[in-house]
């Protein structure tokens, strides 16, 4: 077991190193941050000074070396735009994004599973067909467009919900959280639904497929024959069995929700990490882009590592195969 974990850790380390190089050289290839940041009036001397102070006059490999040696000490560089440590700027934005991701995950689960199970139990009914058609829309409509439409409908026409930004923030257990006040909740609702649409559709489809499959299993037939109540069969026997694939997929998708809520955050001016990333790309704030992608790489490597380890505990065949190879 420990051999397996050590091997996986080493592989993860290699992935992180390779990714850091790819990310750094990719970012290095686009544009010139000085051209974007410098004031029009600056003369050539001023521009050269800036290039030097940002360390952009050095050859690529030297720049990469400096980045790595600093990163090993936990410093992912200073933002060009804000002149503050990139890592802190990103971590500062993380709670807002986490909040958005958690709320939209909740929406996907709370609405997705019952709707999916319903569609699985009564596949021929009018309601089920509508649910399934709706889920196709959820998959295929672009987030950006849906976001704007939601703003036009709920904020501009009806005036029910605020169209932009994050609401009042309270500090709870050291975390700045906004969803426990009405103001904060009303702000998070639209972006969260917008972000949840895709996942919601996926949960509906997974739950429906699972339900259809489980219904034909012997233990359901046996439960029915035993005369158990319909509600107990669905809530206990069906639910338990369809949840496994749903939970597995959602767990992995959560990383994606956190990392790439860029579009939703931009449309709703949500002050999270995604908005920081897209703003930083526009301004070529290389340290932020690199630090952000490194954090995401770490996040995914970590999730995959945990999943791998869990699998190997659950399924000895994985472990044995690994030792052999």
């Amino acid at each position: 077991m420990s051999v397996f974990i050590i091997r996986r850790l080493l592989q993860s380390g290699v992935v992180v190193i390779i990714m850091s190089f790819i990310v750094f050289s990719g970012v290095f290839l686009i544009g010139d941050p000085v051209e974007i940041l410098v004031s029009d009036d600056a003369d050539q001397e001023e521009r050269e000074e800036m290039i030097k102070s940002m360390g952009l006059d050095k050859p690529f490999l030297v720049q990469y070396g400096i980045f790595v040696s600093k990163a090993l000490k936990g410093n992912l560089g200073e933002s060009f735009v804000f002149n503050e440590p990139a890592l802190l700027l990103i971590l500062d934005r993380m709670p807002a994004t986490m909040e958005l991701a958690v709320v939209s995950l909740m929406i996907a689960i709370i609405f997705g599973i019952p709707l999916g199970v319903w569609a699985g139990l009564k596949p021929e009914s009018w309601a089920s067909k509508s649910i399934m058609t709706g889920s196709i829309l959820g998959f295929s409509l672009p987030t950006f467009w849906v976001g704007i439409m939601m703003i036009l409908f709920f904020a501009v026409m009806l005036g029910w919900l605020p169209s932009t930004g994050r609401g009042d923030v309270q500090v709870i257990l050291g975390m700045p959280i906004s969803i426990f006040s009405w103001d904060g909740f009303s702000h998070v609702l639209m972006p969260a639904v917008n972000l949840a649409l895709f996942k919601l559709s996926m949960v509906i489809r997974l739950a429906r497929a699972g339900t259809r499959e489980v219904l034909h299993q012997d233990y359901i037939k046996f439960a029915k024959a035993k005369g158990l109540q319909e509600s107990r069969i669905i809530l206990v026997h069906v639910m338990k069995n369809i949840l496994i694939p749903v939970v597995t997929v959602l767990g992995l998708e959560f990383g994606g929700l956190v990392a790439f809520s860029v579009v939703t955050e931009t449309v709703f001016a949500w002050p999270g990490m995604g908005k920081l990333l897209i703003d930083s790309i526009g301004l070529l704030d290389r340290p932020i882009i690199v630090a952000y992608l490194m954090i995401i790489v770490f996040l995914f490597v970590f999730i995959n590592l945990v999943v791998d380890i869990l699998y190997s505990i659950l399924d000895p065949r994985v472990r044995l195969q690994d030792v052999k190879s």
Partner: protein
Amino acid sequence: MKSLRRLGLAAGAVLMLSTPLQAADIVIGIRSEPSSIDPYFHNLGPNNAMLGQIFDRLNDWTPKMDKMFGRAAKSWKAINETTWEYKLHKGIKFHDGSDLTADDVIFSYDRAANYTGGNSSFRTYTKGKTLKKIDDYTIHITTEKPYPLMPNDTTTVMIMSSEAKGTGGKNKGISAKDFNNGLAAIGSGPYKFVEWKKGDRIVLEKFAGYKGPIEQPWDKITFKFIKAEPARVAALLAGDVDAIDNVPTSDIERLKKNAKVTLSSGVSNRVIYLHMDQFRDKSPFVTTKDGKPLDKNPLKNPKVRKAISMMINREAIVERVMEGVAIPAGQLLPEGFFGRSKKLSFEKYDPKGAKKLLEEAGWGDGFGLTIHGPNDRYINDAKICEAIGQMLSAQGIPTKVVTMPKNVYFKRASKGAKGLPEFSFVLVGWGSGTGEPSSPLKSLLATHDKSKGMGASNRGRHSDPKVDGLINEALATVDDVKRGKLLAQATELAIGENQGIIPLHYQVNTWATRKGLKFNPRADERTTGHDYIPVK
């Protein structure tokens, strides 16, 4: 003369008391977030707009940029060829209650001039100047050579308290971070800094001790950063914000019809223009009509450049592409600015004349071109490039159109090919922060020369010693009338005769508010809270 009334320029004029008794708050949705609260960290539009409300400058521009008025300074004048005397107002208080004196001004200019680690400093404006304290309220600024642009330059550098405390390090022990969290953000402007939630909002609060000329219509100003254009407009329509800036031109017609919205627009100091490669004999994006390389560069011929200018129907671009919200341009600054040429008007659309000129120049058969431009920098930039491409293609110069995001574009346009401009025909814009044409003349049309700091943004490398001579002479002429004439002459020669660049139009910016408010349109494109005023 609304601006005059608003600023109360008449000495000690008391502004009409129109402030209602209840607290007046405004929420403004703006496109661009500043990068710092440190006034010397980044010489950039959004920063200068935001921080000018917190910090005073010695003097400043009226919104239309046609006049200067004193902020910290009561008066300024040249007492000899190389010395300017600034007298400060007595009794100006910083937000922490301390007095603003000559020491604070000298401290501020010193920090600005020696700032390290920022993104483009204010050294362009402090270079070669020595500040000397005469008494607590008098400062002499001296230069080695006569320097007429002193009052223009002092509209840029902001004044911070010399007693502000930071957490150590360079830049006099005060870091950008100390400003961003409010510790050192102590100015003497009409509004106090309250908080900055990055990516979300900046909140300012009225400074009760402010006695200067800027009106304070609001008790609290909240700036929310809403970058996406449709989202910003929607936020206004939904009533989540009271006002927005940078209204997209495509929404203007629709908003005009909306009874709940007021639009305010004004011409800016920004001209959109074209650079043409005038330094290479083989220009990479000038080809034969069927796209093969050319061994001669027709753009070097002023007649060809003029012909291209005549092929462009500026009125059609303004009408169709800009939806009427722009003004056709024939020089570097729109009407009302200092140092403009009275002779130059915009080049009229003249296809026949253009054809004749091309023939005279020996290019009657035409040639191929590629126009490059950004697609996220200026209002409708990519669409303008497409329109120009179509106009030239229809008149014997088949033109390809390539546009790209600004973060890729500007590097390639300035030094993409071995340190030289990569393109042959580019669309760019220039806003004259000094409110007169010497800055664009110096940067765009003077010969590119690193050692002299001239022609820094001259992406076509236009070069004419006569133009250089006129610019240098103007920059050393203290007499306003004479300098104005020299600048006009330089413009007439560089644009009117040489066709060094092709001006297209002056950008017009539009701000929108809910009914009951309006904005004093600012020629410097800044969005400032105190320029939003209730309509009586």
